[in-house]
């Protein structure tokens, strides 16, 4: 049983929504030695909104046999005293509608994030503790481990800025990172292609050994803007070994808006719309 994936869900959905920008929720203190790299990271950090509401979020997972399953929902996230609060409520398919997740980041590093799950069938909230970061989220190709990998990577002072490249007709900065040994990641390296104009990553490769295992990619045409914040309306995560993929689509992104506290309260997050 892999209920532990809930731990990363809101972070991850944010990641899926705004790619690397979401990952930078946790990297504000990063201070790379390379000024050029620091500049790129600072620009990306500027894309992180204080609050976020995604009206329509869709996850379409395609398995090896070509079968697809689609989940739709709504996401709310904010930073409260520097700590992340995120809630995802499922809207479709109908038999899953009403299910909700809540993640509340804790201040102490030794304490795991608080995660809550509400299932209409049980009609009660369960607090979930423990579980693995490697698990997939709702049977998709996203998992907490990739998010943590990005988070760790962008915190890594040993990251390198490689020669700029062209991707989808746009100039991109290429960032390469290796995880710290202590991180215990399944991935050996990470490379991100960050659009120079918007500071949004258009592609991220997750390496197992010498070869990429997963690839997160988006088209430049999916770039959109909410206020001063850039994000992607569609991205795709591919598992290059298993041959599965998940497409994430978002619409109705609102940043900087006031969000009701009940969305992030373990006693009421699942109530109402």
């Amino acid at each position, binding site marked *: *049983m*892999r*209920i*532990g*994936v809930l731990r990363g869900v809101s972070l991850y959905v944010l990641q899926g929504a705004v790619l690397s920008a979401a990952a930078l929720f946790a990297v504000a203190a990063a201070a790379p030695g390379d000024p050029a790299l620091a500049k790129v990271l600072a620009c990306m950090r500027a894309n992180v909104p204080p609050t976020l509401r995604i009206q329509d979020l869709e996850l379409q*997972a395609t*398995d*090896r*046999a070509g*079968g*697809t*399953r689609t*989940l739709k929902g709504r996401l709310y996230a904010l930073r409260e005293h520097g700590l992340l609060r995120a809630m995802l409520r499922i809207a479709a398919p109908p*038999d*899953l509608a009403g*299910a909700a997740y809540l993640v509340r980041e804790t201040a102490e590093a030794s304490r795991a994030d608080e995660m809550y*799950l509400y*299932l*209409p*069938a*049980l009609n*009660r*909230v*369960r*607090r*979930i*503790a*423990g*579980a*693995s970061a*490697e*698990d*997939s989220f*709702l*049977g998709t190709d996203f998992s907490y481990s990739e998010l943590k990998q990005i988070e760790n990577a962008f915190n890594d002072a040993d990251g390198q800025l490689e020669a700029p490249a062209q991707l989808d007709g746009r100039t991109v900065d290429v960032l390469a990172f290796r995880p710290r040994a202590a991180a215990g990641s399944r991935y050996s390296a990470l490379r991100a292609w960050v659009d120079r104009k918007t500071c949004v990553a258009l592609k991220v490769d997750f390496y197992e*050994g010498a070869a990429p295992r997963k690839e997160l990619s988006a088209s430049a045409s999916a770039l959109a803007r909410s206020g001063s914040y850039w994000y992607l309306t569609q991205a795709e995560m591919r598992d290059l*070994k*298993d041959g599965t993929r998940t497409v994430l689509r978002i619409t109705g992104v609102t940043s900087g808006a006031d969000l009701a506290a009940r969305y992030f309260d373990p006693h009421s997050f699942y109530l109402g719309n």
Partner: protein
Amino acid sequence: MFFWIPRVARHPRALLAAVLLLAGVAAALSVDPRTLRPRLRIDPSAEALLPAHDADRAVLERLRRTFGDEDPVIVAVRFAPSVFTAENLEKIDALSGRLQKLPGVRSVFSLATAPNPLASGDELTVTSFTAQARANPAQIARLPQQLAANPLYRGTLVSRDGTIAAFALRLDYSDPARYVREDFSGRVRAAAATVAPGAPVWITGTLPVRAATAAALSRTLAFSVPAVFVLVALLLLVAFRSLRALFAALLTVGIALLLTLATATALRMEFNLVTAIVPALVVAIGLSYSIHLLAAYFLSRSMIPQAAPAERAEWVMKRIAVGLTLSATTTIVGFLSLLLNPLPAIRAFAWLATIGTLYVGFLTLSFTPALLNALGCDDEPPPFGQRLFAALGQRLARFDTRYRIQIIAVALVLIPLDLWFATRIRAGTEFIQGFSAKAQVRRDFEAINRAFDGANLVQILIDTHVNDALADPAQIRPLQALEDWLRKQPEVGAVVSYIDQLKVLNRALNGDDPVYFAVPDSAAAVKQLLVFGGGEAIQHLVDPRFSSAVITARITVDDSIAIGDFLERLDAQLRALPPPLAAQATGSTVLAVHAVNALAGGHLASILIAGFAIWALLSVMFYSMRAGFIATLPNVVPVCVYFGTLGLLHISLNPTTSLIACIVLGIAVNDTVHFLARFNADARERGAETGAIASALAAVLRPITLATAALCLGFLAFTGSELRAQVQFGWLSAWTLFCAWIADMLLTPALGSKLRIVTLWDLLRLDLGVSPQHTIPLFSGLSMRQARLFALLSRMEEVPAGTRIIREGDYARDIYVILDGNVEVLVERHGERKRLATLGRGAVIGEAGFFGQRRTAHIDTLTPVRLLRFDSQDLERLRLRYPATAATVFRNLNRIQAERIARMTAMVS
């Protein structure tokens, strides 16, 4: 057909150079120059035996495509005194980490990674068993109970006695060659030794077993081929006492083998349990051909002692060309009959063995004589045992003639008796028990099979083709009933499906209340639990659309018959599932069982076709269906004995034993042909069959015995294999071939002693002069073929000039037809010779004696004469076997008599 022989014989150097060049190319094709290892790949998987488009295979591929992953590698480590101590749980955690870091490991499933949901109030802790033990040592005491209560882990993560922990490793590859190359098992053992020094470790799973099979096949190949060479080389050395002859034979067969391997490489054929037999088989067949060739070569020294090398080569080639071609043809017919088999591995065997036989046959015929001349074998001592075998042949002939009826009776009793025993035969094979009891792979498998609830997997693919059908409790109920049924079967150790996962989730999210260890009442609840709680594990059990799922059963039995019995019962259960539920058993084990079961149908057809084809070939060869039958019968008996042996010893028909009947039938018939051809020649020369049996046996006993010994030794080389199937193949092939030799030495002479045979070769080369049907009245109205048939069933005699053929006053019943030359008919009266007539080609003489009267005149040859002599027995034989020809001959004989009477009447009047 053999027009090329003189040309090849005249250019030995060109031939030797061409063959050696070809061998060089073949070597370059077969061996990787960088590693000096053969390029030919070994595929030990059961799927390799099945057709690429087989429906079963398609189901397995669909299952793997949908649910991913090959079968895992199972590692079991004993932790004394029990797994459930803080120290040992830490070791398990450490070992899981180390195993996870091994190259190619995608995931490790163990006590350190499997989540154990613990409910406490509204909180659910989902961490691994080892993490919980570390966080709360008091939890350790509860672990056995928690494991026993969880159908996902019961008997899976820890042995029932609590001393052995299991680690299921999913690898990102399924190539046994990589497994062996990277010494994966060695790395696992090293990791275990680091964490738990001295702890016993067992490793099993499809991949390790395939790797072990591939390694065993490699070793069998590496052992059997040289072993055949050595054994048969010793035999050749003893038999021919010539190192140079030995070298020539070995080089010829070696090159043929190289060409066979190069062809297999070029055709991208892979060696499997069946095709791995081909190399040693080609060597054995080649060396048996060499025995016939060397016998002819050494005979040439006495027959044409002054001949030049090219002349000798041509003589030898012509001497063995027909016999060798026929031998190779019957052998190939035996192989090709296997093409009817549904298993592609057996069809690949048939092609490869055919190709090898063609190579070895052609090279023996063409290359070896040239090589023998080049090596200069003229001064070698005469072959060993010729006189001994000749004497034995004479004694054997006397025995065969004396006990003819008894021998035939025994054979006729043996056939139904063996067929009765054969009714006990079942198609089946042991998979892991195919290895010797001492083999590490078998010991590991059996240890894990004992400690846990089975080590063989049977997967059941449930398909509904309806989205969300498997989330519907109404559809889940029959599947639950199926799981319950499975758990009651004696062969089944454990069963896991998404339903178990569902129940565990339901209980965990409902405060660990046992009441909730059940399927929820609504489809929505089922989906919510599985989608939000199932995580990655659920992807391996049910598809995202909830339209298909897999139920995995671990079974404790290993042999295909027991598994087949279980599958038969299972299939009945699966067929009874209500729509839209459709299910099919699959998995490597199931495919292997189906592959073995598929043998039975194709096998009988192959044997019948081989028998029919050989009978047809021999019928053409001997120009008579009856003669073809008599030549085939001695080879049917050993095949029946073979099947009787299988039934009597309860040996199952498996991919290798199913080859034997056709192989032996194709090979053993060569001896029959050799004997009958020699018998035919001797009988024609002597004019009587009885004496010909002795002379033919005396002549062929040695080469046939040596060739059989060479083949038996070749097959016995397989008994050194680590794989039981190959060992069985070796013993049974040698035994069946030995039985065929016995049949050829006893039954063939007994059956043939009353048989006048005509060979196709005789028919083609028989010279009856120009237009015999027009120039010889007895042949009037016959075709050339019919005229030759009659001539061959008679006796062709060459008589020098001045010889008396018929003496006046004698009682004799032979009739003569003059083919060439002139005779005079004369009487002697009062000391005077009175010539009555001079007769030439076409004249029929001696017919008065044929009708029971004394000879009425002398007949002397004036020139060298060729005669056809026949009697009433010959005519009766002709009537029985070729009635149309006989009718014409009788009509002609009557006409000749009538004309003669008319002439005499005219003279008198």
